[in-house]
């Protein structure tokens, strides 16, 4: 097509040249009146275009249908949350006038009713006003079983009413503490999608899912070419102001090494999931690194099923010995180039962690003493401790990621020094994270220790159900998420209590007890804090990135 166009232009040009040669010479120039001002061309500003590199293509652009990280962060470019979070994880209103609170009447005294007051000037990118009816429609679509949405949480906990076009009232059965981190992550345009739903009886096949021409973010969707790129242009109707950047192209580059090459070549302006080992090279190419704490902390879970788990791990002293026998500070320094810190809890860098908690120190002698005290001694002189005929030999599994393999090797060596034999196992992520029904090694208790990064689904809210006793997977409840099979009634009662504590201070006190308990009993052993590492090209300026809603200040981003 392009070549044909070029040939056509060439032919036109040649014809013009030939015809031009045949045209008689111009007459003598006429006198120009002295008052005439020669016309000056108005300079057309060059559009400011940037390229973001995503190593995974989003699976859908309907915010209801995915929890995929790359999809979720893209929603903040063209769709809208009711509020977003800055780089200090503080909430900022987007669709609402102010954050609901008890003081402004947004949260009822019993914590069961939350009222949103919508801004007057909010509009979809086609100019249609955003009203409470869009919220009601979105809620209805989430809960409709005919729609294969990724999750119904937390919509299954409340009913919603719209007393007027600018008010949304949510009524919960119980006080719902996690509202700030979980509510209204994306909105559906009722005027576009309701006719589709009425026609198809589902939104599963809606054209809008892949071609959302109407949105409510600072940019509007322009096109999406599968496995190639997606393009977004500045939304002229955005109520918080027009972005300084005119166009964002998200290019899908699935290979990490290719992403690094593209950033070094200066063709990509933003990339993420940068490996620690690539950072020095990128910095040499004037690529800046911005880290955003997104709630992820790498750590080890111990499989503590009372019948199926390893008997040694049932004793808290053995788990504490494992924590003391492994040098995580050196691991962070050597393997991660000192670019992050050891993790103490799964909630590091949030207000929910007991501030007195410090990472376990490296003290192999104390570890040996604890193992002796617990009765695990090397009785046969083979270098591996044992008790009642059972060897202290543990299976430690994780994915095939290089840094995890290296961590395993360090742990194996350091634990061998205190008489614990560790067998290392590695799996592809899809097999490793498979559920109980699919025979996943973590979910089915095939591993004594298993390592990965995790985060609460509603981050920055800490709420999680993965420590509940009824979440231990079994044949009857294969979908259970408590893969570590920890059933501690005291921990569970605290976790359930915090779900209802709408008052921040009260909830924080409960979380301090929770984090202290998980830490002391070593139900989870922190390895390192795992922030999102972004590579920002030299052209981009004013870039700040949040761990919860990365593009919270994208309106201010600019290019040199």
């Amino acid at each position: 097509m392009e070549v044909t166009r070029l040939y056509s232009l060439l032919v036109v040009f040649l014809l013009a040249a030939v015809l031009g040669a045949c045209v008689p010479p111009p007459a003598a120039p006429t006198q120009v009146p002295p008052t005439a001002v020669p016309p000056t061309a108005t300079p057309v500003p060059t559009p400011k275009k940037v390229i973001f590199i995503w190593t995974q293509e989003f699976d859908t652009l309907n915010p209801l249908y995915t929890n995929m990280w790359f999809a979720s962060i893209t929603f903040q470019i063209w769709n809208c949350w009711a509020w977003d979070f800055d780089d200090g994880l503080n909430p900022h209103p987007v669709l609402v006038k102010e954050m609901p609170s008890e003081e402004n009447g947004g949260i009822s005294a019993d914590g069961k009713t939350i009222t949103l007051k919508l801004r007057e000037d909010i509009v979809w990118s086609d100019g249609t006003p955003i009203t409470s009816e869009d919220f009601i429609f979105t809620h209805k679509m989430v809960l409709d079983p005919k729609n294969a949405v990724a999750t119904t949480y937390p919509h299954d906990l409340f009913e919603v009413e719209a007393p007027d076009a600018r008010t949304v009232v949510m009524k919960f059965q119980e006080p719902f503490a996690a509202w700030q981190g979980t509510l209204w992550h994306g909105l559906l345009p009722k005027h576009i999608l309701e006719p589709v739903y009425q026609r198809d009886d589902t939104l599963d096949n809606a054209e809008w899912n892949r071609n959302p021409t109407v949105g409510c973010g600072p940019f509007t969707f322009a096109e999406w070419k599968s496995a190639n790129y997606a393009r977004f242009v500045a939304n002229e109707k955005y109520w918080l102001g027009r972005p300084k950047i005119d166009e964002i192209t998200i290019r899908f580059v699935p290979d990490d090494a290719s992403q690094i090459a593209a950033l070094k070549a200066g063709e990509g302006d933003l990339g993420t999931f940068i490996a620690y080992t690539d950072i020095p090279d990128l910095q040499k190419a004037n690529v800046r690194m911005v880290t955003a704490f997104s709630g992820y902390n790498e750590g080890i879970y111990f499989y503590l099923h009372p019948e199926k788990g390893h008997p040694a791990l049932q004793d808290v002293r053995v788990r504490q010995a494992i924590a003391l026998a492994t040098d995580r500070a050196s691991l962070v320094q050597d393997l991660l180039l000192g670019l992050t810190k050891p993790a103490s809890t799964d909630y590091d860098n949030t207000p929910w962690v007991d501030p007195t908690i410090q990472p376990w120190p490296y003290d192999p002698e104390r570890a040996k003493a604890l193992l002796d005290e617990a009765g695990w001694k090397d009785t046969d002189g083979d270098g591996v401790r044992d008790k009642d005929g059972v060897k202290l030999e543990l299976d430690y599994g994780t994915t095939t990621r290089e840094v995890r393999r290296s961590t395993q090797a360090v742990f194996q060596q350091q634990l061998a020094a205190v008489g614990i034999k560790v067998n290392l196992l590695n799996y592809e992520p899809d097999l490793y994270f498979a559920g109980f029904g699919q025979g996943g090694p973590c979910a089915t208790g095939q591993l004594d220790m298993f390592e990965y990064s995790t985060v609460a689904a509603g981050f920055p809210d800490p709420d999680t159900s993965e420590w509940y006793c009824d979440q231990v997977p079994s044949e009857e409840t294969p979908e259970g998420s408590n893969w570590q099979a920890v059933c501690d009634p005291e921990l569970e009662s605290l976790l359930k209590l915090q779900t209802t504590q709408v008052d921040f201070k009260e909830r924080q006190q409960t979380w301090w007890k929770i984090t202290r308990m998980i830490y002391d009993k070593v139900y989870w052993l922190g390895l390192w804090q795992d922030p999102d590492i972004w590579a920002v090209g030299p052209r981009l300026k004013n870039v700040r990135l949040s761990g919860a809603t990365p593009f919270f200040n994208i309106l201010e981003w600019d290019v040199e």
Partner: protein
Amino acid sequence: MGRYIIRRLLQAVPQLFIISIIIFALLYTTVDPIAAMTGDRGKPRPETRKRLERKYGLDQPWFVQYIYWLVGNDWLMLDLDFDGIPETPGPRKGILRGDFGLSVRGPRPALEPIGEALPNTLLLMGTAEAAILGLALLIGVYSALRQYSIFDHFVTAFSFIGYSMPIFFIALFSLYIFSVLLRLLPSPARPLRTTEDFALALILPALSISFSSLAGYSRYVRSAMLEVLNQDYIRTARSKGLPRPMITFVHALKNASLPLVTLVGLDLPMLLGGAVVTETIFAWPGMGQLFIRSLGEDPAVVMAILMLIAVAVVIFQLLTDLTYAWLDPRIRYR
């Protein structure tokens, strides 16, 4: 000949049926699409898993799922709201009615992403295969005619370097040289919008594939040509005074092409699967990338790709046999 073709096609039906059962059983017992649908870094919520498994029919044993895949489940009512009353018809029609299932990415019909990726793969692999064949014929014939010459030794050494290097190394090496250091060609960050974008982005992946495959092909041509050039009929042709180009390209090359045809016949259906490593490194939006992305999470798409390749293998094997008959008139099929 017509009966032969029909017989071969009919034989293919049970073959494809058995292949589909094996692939399906392997795929659906090892992949957890719900984990992929509901989040890439966390675990799906239990109630979400239960609901989606019911919706996609994944709560059934694999052989029941296979029946749904084959003939659909729109003749069944599903209880999606778990109130004990089935109220929603199943969404699947089955491949016998042209429905290859729903890709969990979207969700959308599994054939849609394949339809988008296939032309790009054909462009890349077609270009690479044409370059491989053209160069292999030139190099192979020339090396056979000038056996043990400096050129023959040089080409042999060069082609073996290409053969012994893994494709990912060739691809990354060429990417760093031409895109990062010399900046002569675009990096994978450049979106493929225009014909020019595609043409420029095609160069490095096509070269990488060609470089790694050229050795094998050119050695085949060389050895086949050497064998044929020593045959009696070639000596006869020479003694009859036929021009050398005619002897080489008409009489010798045609017969020397038989092993090459076998090789190409085996390779062509695989072209549909794309080049997984090369497409991933160069972010080429083709079948290889689609396949690897879908492997752990999207069984409907993987199944459709594998069945497409299986059908292509059957068809290309048949075409290969027919080409034998054209190249060698002594071969007859009944």
